[in-house]
């Protein structure tokens, strides 16, 4: 695959410490397009190694609006299904430019290990020094050891190491869309995580046409209903949790967006300093970036303050545990304080609500946000699953995909064809979506 691709699929066997790479063939792209559909194909190809597959969408890291997302595909220990978790923030971008389109991780390392993926090179490195450390300490350690503060990480904390079914992989320091217990999959492989850094170049078959099409779509997107809204608070309002916004407002510092995403889906709150202060904070860790809508809503339901709720989100992210699940189980057992809840992390078990069919992460709201989607009315579940499938194939931010009807399947197919010279039709996309949903 010559365009929009590093043309490499990395296969890592942790048992034998063997690292190989294959080409990404045009035939595979012509059949599955990219992202979650290719990742599922690779999962099935290497199923005997109980793989975790990490990949990018066909447009990830380009100038197409919201082309931020990568994907983690594995068998969920809580649903038993092959499930997909979006990779957001700047992590999907960094994977794209680190030199591999897909990474298949199979087997089990005899000792704690992590993968250092950089500029087309993949190293299996010892994680002995960070095993037992929390998510924040681990990312800090890797950035310091490698001497680069822009390294992006996918990492587990204590929950993953202990193979809790509530374990969540985290991105850098923050919660992810992993509601599938993928942190347990990492722990079972003795895999602390992955660190990415890359300076690659993505070429396009027709660069000028690609960029003009991307700009046309962006201009349409910027007329969307979401314009003027920002952050987690407005998303909560859109899904009927209107009081979150005012409850959170006093500690909101700034909102930030994932790579090239026209809506700032992330909200940073200050817990130790004045949130209105815009100069560089004095504390090295003044607050927390909220990336998890339902974790926040869950803690709010306990009747605690926004500061207490966000301190709980922070504790969950450090431990690498699914905050929405923690909130649901803690509410059921009447635990409320940080000490009580944090103290229960190691033993927390129980059935947790995960809306949907277990394929795409319910981390993303399952309804249109702000915008009106003509096709969302008849069967909202089917609409949401298709929207998730298409976003995961092309690398579109899943939350943005449910707030911007301006991003259409026609646009995605057209620009992908222009960018790759691989003819991609609606039938191809329908087949890839059906393959993911079956």
């Amino acid at each position, binding site marked *: 695959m010559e365009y929009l691709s590093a043309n490499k699929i990395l296969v890592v066997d942790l048992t034998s410490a063997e690292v190989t790479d294959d080409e990404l063939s045009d035939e595979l792209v012509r059949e599955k397009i990219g992202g979650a559909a290719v990742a599922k194909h690779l999962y099935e190809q290497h199923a005997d190694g109980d793989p975790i597959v990490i990949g990018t969408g066909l447009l990830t*890291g*380009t*100038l197409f*609006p919201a082309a931020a997302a990568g994907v983690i595909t594995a068998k969920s220990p809580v649903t038993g299904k092959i499930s997909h978790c979006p990779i957001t923030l*700047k992590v999907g*971008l960094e994977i794209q*430019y680190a030199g591999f389109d897909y990474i298949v991780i199979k087997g089990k390392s005899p000792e704690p290990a992590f993968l250092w993926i950089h500029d087309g090179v993949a190293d299996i490195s010892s994680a002995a020094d960070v095993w037992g450390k929390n998510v*924040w300490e681990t990312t800090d350690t890797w950035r310091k050891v490698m001497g*680069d*503060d*822009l390294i992006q990480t996918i990492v587990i904390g204590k929950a993953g190491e202990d193979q809790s079914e509530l374990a969540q992989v985290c991105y*850098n*320091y923050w919660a992810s869309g992993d509601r599938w217990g993928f942190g347990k999959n990492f722990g079972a492989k003795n895999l602390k995580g992955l660190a990415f*850094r890359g*300076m*690659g*170049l*993505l*070429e*396009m078959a027709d*660069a000028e046409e690609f*960029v*003009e099409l*991307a*700009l046309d779509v*962006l201009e349409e*997107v*910027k007329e969307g209903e979401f314009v003027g809204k920002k952050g987690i608070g407005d998303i909560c309002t859109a899904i009927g949790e209107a009081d979150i916004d005012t409850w959170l407002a006093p500690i909101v*510092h*700034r*909102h*930030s*967006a*994932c*790579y*090239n*995403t*026209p809506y*700032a889906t992330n909200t*940073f709150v200050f817990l130790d300093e004045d949130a209105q202060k*815009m*100069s*560089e*904070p004095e*504390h*090295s*860790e*003044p*607050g927390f*970036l909220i990336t998890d809508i339902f974790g926040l809503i869950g803690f709010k339901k306990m009747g605690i303050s926004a500061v207490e709720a966000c301190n709980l989100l922070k504790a969950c992210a450090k431990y690498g545990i699914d905050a929405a699940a923690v909130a649901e189980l803690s509410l059921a057992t009447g635990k409320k304080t940080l000490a009580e809840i944090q103290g229960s992390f190691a033993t927390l078990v129980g059935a947790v609500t995960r809306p949907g069919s277990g394929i795409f992460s319910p981390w993303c709201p399952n309804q249109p946000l702000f915008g009106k989607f003509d096709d969302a009315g008849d069967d909202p579940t089917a609409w949401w699953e298709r929207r998730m499938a298409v976003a995961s194939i092309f690398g579109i931010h899943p939350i943005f995909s449910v707030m911007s009807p301006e991003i259409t399947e026609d646009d995605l197919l057209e620009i992908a064809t222009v960018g790759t010279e691989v003819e991609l039709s609606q039938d191809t996309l329908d087949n890839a979506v059906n393959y993911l949903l079956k």
Partner: protein
Amino acid sequence: MALKIDALKCTGCMACEMACGYHRDDGFALLSSCIVAYRTKEKKDYFGVILKREEDLLIARPEGTEIKRIGETEETPAAGKQQDASAKPMLLREACDLCEEMDLGPMCIKFCPFDAISED
């Protein structure tokens, strides 16, 4: 014409950096951009944009915009560790030419989803 950056509108999405990279390399890459999102202080949520111009650096921080001569800031190797730019020091990057040979105009303005960059 010059560029003006409103750091408080900026969400750190890096679209400007990629758009500039496309202008330089005719592909998607970040190594040659003259506009860079600085994002190394992630746990502090302290981010903004640095633009390399012919004579100086325009640094759009949340608390305000600052202009520094190249070599005077921590964003350049002159102060030792490069802290806030990307993998390639700002000193080694080409200065902004406002995408003068491109019909689309300054690419960073066109592709900023939040209209944080404008003409001054």
